[in-house]
């Protein structure tokens, strides 16, 4: 048996003892009083679960407020069992929490909950997304007219689009710390644009054609195709809005994917 095989076995047994059911079986690996050792193993169990729970609470404060502490902690525990962290950085733990909630039977009565979680994760990702230099507008102005329809625009790395059949932005806004939790709308879909501007994450509700246009640009479609997503709709104001708020950061012409 190599060193790492022996160590791997011990560490796997430790993990099973702390997170699984077989605590007592680990006693043979411990020095000193076995009873005290096993009670202290529970310190680790508690710390591990608390760290995971805290990380999720920090990333999903609105979901936590919506369901309350008991429900959230139980969901966090079950999520940790189903999808334990695959990396050491807890700031990146929770990417699949929305998908977990969508399938969580006890959340079935709140079909909008998973989409609220998706919006919170988009906010969370946007805050930590890469910085990027702004669009070179002088270069953009020099693109010959013939190449303009083929332009592909590159969105800032912090831009996210969250599309929901539920009024998730109203729910999100109503559950910010200074609000009492009552949403201003109780039905209707929300398409939410998420981006970072001057180091703050901002959210805005988009009209359906606006969302379709942003989605097309984000997917790397040429301007002519993106503009044609919805007929008889002028994309100019939306495009200008993207420029105004620093959401455009590059472009390419022809078939080249923007870099």
């Amino acid at each position: 048996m190599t060193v790492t095989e022996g160590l791997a076995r011990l560490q796997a047994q430790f993990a099973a003892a702390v997170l699984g059911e077989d605590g007592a079986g680990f006693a043979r690996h411990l020095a000193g009083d076995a009873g005290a050792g096993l009670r202290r193993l529970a310190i680790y169990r508690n710390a591990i679960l608390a760290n995971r729970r805290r990380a999720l609470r920090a990333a999903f404060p609105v979901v936590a407020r919506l369901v309350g502490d008991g429900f959230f902690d139980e969901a966090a525990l079950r999520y940790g069992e189903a999808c334990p962290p695959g990396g050491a950085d807890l700031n990146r733990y929770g990417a699949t929490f929305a998908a977990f909630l969508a399938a969580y039977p006890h959340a079935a009565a709140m079909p909008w909950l998973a989409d609220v979680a998706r919006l919170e994760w988009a906010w969370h990702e946007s805050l930590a997304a890469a910085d990027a230099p702004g669009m070179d507008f002088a270069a953009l102005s020099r693109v010959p007219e013939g190449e303009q329809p083929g332009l592909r625009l590159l969105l800032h790395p912090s831009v996210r689009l969250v599309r929901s059949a539920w009024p998730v932005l109203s729910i999100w806004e109503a559950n910010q710390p200074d609000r009492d939790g009552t949403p201003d709308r109780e039905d209707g879909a929300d398409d939410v644009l998420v981006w970072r501007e001057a180091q703050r994450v901002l959210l805005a509700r988009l009209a359906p054609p606006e969302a379709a246009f942003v989605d097309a640009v984000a997917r790397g479609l040429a301007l002519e195709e993106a503009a044609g997503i919805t007929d008889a709709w002028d994309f100019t104001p939306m495009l200008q809005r993207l420029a105004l708020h620093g959401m455009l950061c590059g472009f390419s012409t022809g078939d080249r994917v923007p870099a």
Partner: protein
Amino acid sequence: MTARFPPRAPDPRKAGIGLRTAHFEALARSRPALSFLEVHSENYFADGGPSLAWLERFRADHAVSLHGVGLSLGSADPIDREHLARLARLAGRIEPALVSEHLCWSSIGGEHLSELLPLPYSEEVLAHVCDRVASVQERLGRKILVENVCAYVRYASSTIPEGEFVAEVARRTGCGVLLDVNNAWINSVNHGTDAMRFIDALDPSTVGEIHLAGGEVTADGLVDTHGAPVFPEVWALFEKAIARLGAVPTLVEWDVDIPELAVLLAEAAKADAILASSIERASRKAAA
């Protein structure tokens, strides 16, 4: 690579504090003279955004210590190269005075347990840890400090006293030691060992930083919570430690129930006073 920041080193006669989001505004306003600021490396692994912008701003005025909680130096899993790459990227960006990690493990079979778990202290594990410390130092292109952790359980397979184990990692790899006086104290109380024997086993020239912290007394022993003032016994042990080691950059850790900046600065000032009197005693001794 050209430096983006003025080189700054911690002042061994002064304590530093942990940099926490809750204090960003207050620190930026008051700009207190501090030996150094310490952050948890992983909290600045973002690709961009405000956390890094703030850290760069503080780095312009202060020496920064990157203290990692996730590299899992003692794990049987392979080193997470992506995690290490992010640490290297952050170190390149911030130009820290110190980079430290824990002598522990936290992941197995790809699952991360988000806690600093204790290692058995054996010859085999010592060799394994030394290999990994060496490979981390090579990847980062710099020396790191390794910290002794709080071990709530001890293994039957341990054959080397903890102090000797830590000292040997430093001797074999050239890394430094981050001596956590609170962890040494808690282990000695929980397991009936002698904290000063642990400290005496270390080579003073390798100790590059000291941590102090508060904990809690429970039915199952002392617990290292980082959420309370430093125990009086830990202050006393700190005094004895620096009498042996000389003045070392010191940090009071406070990570949960974070108090007002003033409370943190007052704890740091206590450490300053002990460091100052130790230096004075040493110079009187030298003069006599």
